[in-house]
């Protein structure tokens, strides 16, 4: 009898563990850092970390969808910069109302994403090349539009999106959470989301099942552009300045968050919950290394090693 209840307890413990398996690397990291730095596990620092993660997280949600279809998007950083610059330019140079300017910024990002989608789905060009080209082109647009200079001098209202609070919760965190939930539901509960997985799993079969796979892919890339634009608005507001070089290299962080979170680069399996955990691993790591005052060259080594360890732990626990 004892034995049976024992094994039942074991089982439910294992099941709980199983639910959180993607998070085990993060968990270990958090525990270790709590012991190593007294500053780490404090409310201000944790709020700090989630605010820091929000920019990359929002991009990586879009990236998750793109990767789920079996694609990739290297242009997120450039689309982010372009959208931020356009919104800033609309406010500062064209004197537009804050909300209108934001809308135009979002539209700009979405339009670039749409172009990516069309080139991938309709012209059947490899996503890697299409978005690499877009990465360069959109950066060029941004530099041309800004003449290589940051744009600043915004209304106070605009500061809200990057620097405002809802109670104690920073607005970027609120935005990130809302998007996380919306995209989670989109992926798990709507036909659109299901088709995204199906395309990544087997595009031919999906097409033969009567789904307009081109339309879905175009929508996914456009949505990704939109989310990059959202990130761009938050970042511009947070920095109180639109930087022409903003977001450089973010594509690698975003893809890393997605893959760390267990989404396969070949598409078809994974999701945004894993992605947010992946993004948190990266952010917590950056924060922790700063708190521990690891010197910057050694930070690089430590960062790489810990990421490797985190993904190793995750995969091991999933093999159980």
């Amino acid at each position, binding site marked *: 009898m004892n034995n049976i209840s024992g094994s039942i307890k074991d089982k439910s413990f294992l099941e709980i563990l199983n639910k959180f398996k993607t998070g085990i690397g993060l968990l270990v990291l958090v525990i270790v850092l709590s012991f190593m730095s007294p500053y780490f596990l404090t409310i201000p620092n944790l709020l700090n970390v989630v605010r820091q993660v929000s920019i990359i997280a929002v991009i990586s949600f879009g990236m998750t969808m793109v990767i789920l279809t079996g694609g990739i998007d290297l242009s997120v950083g450039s689309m982010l910069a372009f959208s931020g610059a356009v919104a800033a330019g609309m406010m500062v140079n064209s004197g537009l109302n804050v909300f209108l300017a934001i809308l135009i910024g979002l539209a700009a990002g979405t339009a670039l994403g749409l172009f990516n989608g069309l080139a991938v789905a309709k012209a059947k060009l490899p996503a890697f090349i299409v978005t690499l080209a877009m990465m360069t082109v959109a950066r060029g647009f941004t530099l041309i539009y800004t003449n290589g*200079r940051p744009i*600043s001098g915004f209304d106070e209202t605009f500061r809200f999106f990057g620097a405002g609070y809802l109670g104690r919760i920073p607005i970027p965190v609120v935005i990130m959470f809302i998007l996380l939930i919306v995209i989670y539901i989109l992926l798990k509960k709507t036909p659109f989301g299901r088709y995204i997985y199906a395309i990544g799993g087997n595009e031919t079969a999906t097409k033969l099942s009567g789904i307009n796979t081109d339309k879905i892919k175009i929508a996914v890339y456009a949505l990704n552009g939109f989310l990059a634009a959202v990130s761009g608005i938050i970042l511009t507001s947070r920095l109180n300045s639109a930087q022409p070089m903003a977001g450089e290299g973010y594509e690698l962080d975003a893809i890393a968050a997605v893959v760390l979170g267990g989404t396969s680069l070949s598409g078809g399996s994974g999701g945004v919950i894993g992605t947010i955990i992946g993004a948190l691993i990266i952010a917590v790591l950056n924060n922790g290394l700063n708190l521990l005052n690891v010197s910057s060259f050694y930070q690089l080594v430590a960062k790489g090693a810990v990421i490797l360890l985190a993904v190793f732990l995750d995969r091991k626990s999933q093999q159980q």
Partner: protein
Amino acid sequence: QDIKLGLAISTLNNPFFVDLKDGAESMAAEMGVEILTVDAQNDAASQLSSVEDLLIKQIDVLIVNPVDGNAVVSAITAAQDAGVPVITVDRAAEGIDVTSHIASDNVAGGEMAGDFIAKQLGEKGKVVELQGIPGTSAARDRGKGFNQAMDKYSGMEVIARQPAGFDRAEGMTVMENILQGNPEIDAVFAHNDNMALGAMEAIAAAGRSDEIMIVGFDAIDDAREAVKEGNMAATVAQKPGLMGEMAVETAVKVANGEEVDEYTPVPLELITE
């Protein structure tokens, strides 16, 4: 009692900033104060995050070497809101008052280089400008100063302006290509020494070292050596190590409640031998 300083560096991917950091850290050691250094890897957003991380650790003074003068304002505001005074080094913050600013003037440096080249060429000649990473303040300001100088002389003509990423390999490649397209070049001004040294290799390989004078910026060791050997004509010396030292000295004064100057210029120097 113990003083804790935070130093936020724009990037350590360039020996210039490594010197700045080393200067700051050795001065801190000398004065017996703690210094926490973070590196933003040239990303303004990452600089803001790492400053936030420093503030969590309750530093007494923040020394920041901005990735960008506008974007750094958020980080400075965050520090000042937390009651932490801020000192900027090398690059200034725009549109916000800081306790002290320690820097050399990049626009002036660019102009200095331009004037030097014009003088050497007898105010008449064809010049190539190797630009830094588009959009960075160093590229902007040095380009601005240099072109202001060029505009002063009717005989001076900038025949090619190309970006080469502040990088030595890229400096070489871009210069190789420019050499192909321009049979007549009298001088090259590069926004930093890395590019100048890359260009120097390309020019030497093309056998055109005698016709083309090279001027760089930063006075890193390799460039000083090249100037000494006559392979480069000049480099504009900033004194990053000194900047770092001065920043720490000033910060300690601030922490002790002493008065400090609002702006401390670090002299530029044209190294020609």
